[in-house]
């Protein structure tokens, strides 16, 4: 009553296929891909707020992906987020004073790091730190800013109105004469 | 061998000669009493027939004998052992001493004839393959189907399937063989083959056979002792000659195949004329 060799073979194939699928899924999920196209060098940048930047996010210049975010951690001395990136070795002419900002692609898209080149003649090397950064765009902060701006303007307008009410009227009337 | 069976006297039935005994068994399903005080003794080494009108519970009796169901009261003894009190392991050990032939053969449909007969050997013994092969072929030879060893059950006729089932039931050399309606639905030739096999198996191997059937004519040739069960009890017992002349009406109706009698022809219904006129 042993299963025939065909049965055993196809069952074996089935099980292997299952594990292959699992393997495929697991490896496609981890952030391993990057260094496949050759060498890269690591640079770091410190941010006050990284928003929803994740490891594996793209690092791009002028819209072209030049590297990946490798790892994000938190520095308790400086109270900042430490973002380590790997830049593809072929892009070795990034000025030391370049700007790293956290951008969002699309409305729902993930966040990535955009590097705007500076003017320094010295270029980033392995282990360097990008000094100039721009944090992630946090909606709440913007709203607060706007709100307080409007508030100040209203207050200023109100006060200015009380004081210079007569003054205001006078100039208005004069042109009519 | 076939001719003088009907006139063979029944030996005195002492308890030790009974390999299977049913003592005062009561059994009901869902309020309906199937057996109310059933008493039977199956003699060792003989062919015993159990007959009765449809629905009297012959199959239920077999299930009681094999421990598949427990009686509400009373005892079922196999070789002196109370079947209804056994744990699973002991019950299975006991069942290895019995062989059962089902009405439709009940062969495993996804195995061929050889594997079907080999099944109990493979499950219960550690015999080497060569020995199993010899045993299987011997059993198949005794039922005349050694050449069909590699056919699938779906390729067998009803009679052939039953013979293979018999070979399978014999595979572990049981002491008792139980046949559940072995003749039903067979053509005369196949029936003749089965009758011959039942006799041969019983006397050549010295085993006991219990045949449940309604085929009165076949049983007349085969059985050493017979029981007729009706109304939840044994209505009559004895040799065929004794039964033929029995005064009980139900036995008379059954043996002679009469259309009407204690088992009524008409299903209970209101008065005929009234039914027609008021319809």
């Amino acid at each position, binding site marked *: 009553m042993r299963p025939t060799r065909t049965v055993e073979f*196809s069952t074996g194939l089935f099980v292997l296929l299952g594990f292959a699928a699992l393997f495929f899924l697991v490896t496609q*999920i981890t952030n391993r891909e990057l260094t496949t196209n050759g060498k890269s060098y690591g640079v770091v940048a410190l941010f006050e707020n990284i928003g929803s930047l994740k490891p594996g996010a793209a690092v791009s210049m002028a819209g072209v992906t030049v590297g990946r975010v490798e790892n994000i951690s938190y520095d308790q001395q400086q109270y900042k987020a430490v973002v380590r990136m790997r830049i593809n070795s072929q892009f070795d002419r990034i000025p030391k004073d370049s700007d790293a900002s956290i951008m969002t692609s699309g409305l729902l898209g993930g966040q990535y790091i955009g590097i705007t080149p500076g003017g320094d003649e010295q270029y980033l090397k392995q282990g360097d730190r990008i000094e100039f950064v721009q944090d992630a765009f946090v909606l709440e902060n913007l709203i607060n800013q706007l709100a307080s701006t409007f508030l100040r303007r209203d207050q200023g307008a109100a006060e200015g109105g009380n004081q210079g009410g007569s003054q205001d009227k006078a100039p208005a009337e004069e042109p009519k004469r | 061998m076939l001719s003088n069976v009907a006139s063979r006297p029944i030996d005195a039935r002492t308890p030790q000669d009974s390999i299977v005994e049913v003592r005062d068994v009561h059994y009901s399903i869902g309020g309906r009493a199937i057996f109310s005080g059933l008493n039977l003794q199956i003699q060792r080494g003989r062919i015993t027939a159990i007959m009765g009108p449809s629905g009297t519970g012959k199959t239920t009796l077999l299930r009681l004998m094999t421990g598949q169901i427990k009686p509400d009261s009373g005892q079922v003894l196999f070789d002196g052992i109370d079947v209804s009190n056994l744990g699973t392991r002991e019950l299975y050990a006991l069942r290895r001493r019995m062989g059962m032939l089902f009405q439709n053969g009940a062969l*495993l449909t996804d195995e061929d004839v050889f594997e079907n007969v080999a099944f109990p050997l493979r499950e219960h013994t550690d015999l080497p393959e060569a020995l199993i092969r010899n045993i299987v072929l011997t059993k198949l030879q005794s039922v005349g189907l050694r050449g069909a060893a590699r056919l699938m059950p779906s390729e067998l006729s009803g009679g052939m399937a039953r013979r293979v089932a018999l070979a399978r039931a014999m595979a572990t050399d049981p002491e008792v063989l139980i046949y559940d309606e072995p003749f039903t639905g067979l053509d005369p030739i196949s029936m003749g083959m089965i009758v011959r096999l039942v006799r041969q198996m019983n006397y050549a191997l010295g085993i006991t056979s219990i045949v449940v059937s309604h085929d009165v004519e076949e049983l007349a040739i085969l059985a050493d002792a017979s029981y007729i069960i009706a109304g939840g009890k044994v209505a009559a017992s004895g040799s065929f000659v004794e039964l033929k002349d029995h005064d009980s009406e139900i036995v008379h109706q059954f043996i002679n195949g009469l259309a009407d009698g204690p088992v009524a022809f008409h299903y209970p219904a209101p008065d005929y004329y009234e039914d027609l006129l008021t319809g």
Partner: protein
Amino acid sequence: MHFLRELWDNVREFITTVGSVALFFGRVLAQLPGALLRPSLVVEQVHNTGALSLVIIMTCGLFVGMVLGLTGYDLLQRFGSEEALGTAGALAVTKELGPVVTALLFAGRAGTALASEIGLMRATDQLTAMEMMAVDPMRRVIAPRFAGGIIAMPLLTVIFIAIGIFGVQVVGVQLFKVDAASFWSQMRSSVGLDDIMEGVVKGCVFGVACSLIAVYEGYNAAPTAEGVGRATTRTVVNSAVLTLMLDYILTAIML
């Protein structure tokens, strides 16, 4: 009043069935180690339930993935976030569609095959014959089939998920020209090992549920032709309902 009595009868019927299934489950589990000692039987069953279901699983996986690609793309491009297609598609397939659709397909193909096979054995007295030959049908017939089912289901689920994601990719990248790099990288950064585990766990749980229902219905089928037919119908219906209920519970737990 009559209505209430009927309702009560149905409730009692339901509770009895649940108890019956639970007890049956216990018996099958008890026989499972014994069945695993006969690997040839189990391998045969893994073949019957798994390998033979491969074609339907892979086909449906591909189409589900592709549909997801189409719908997802259409939805996301309204927000200008097409590159999120990888993430959205992968998460949907891995966590929900993969396990659930695989379970439903499994119930339909393998579950009915199991139920009808066992039901037929019941109807032709094969199971009783085994008992008479002192062979426990639970160990010899039921447990190996159950084992085959619970081994095959997670594997089928994983295969479905993989092919499903591939299907999303086919539509998204090949057809709609979404940037392949962002498709995969976004997926990679948003989908984690825990999501895959969630999908696999669901696959295992659904596998137990659907296999159990299939062998239960077969074993308890009425020994007639129509009994077997009813058993297969009940297998599909009950498997579907139980799967979806478990899906809700598992999703809530794992979220």
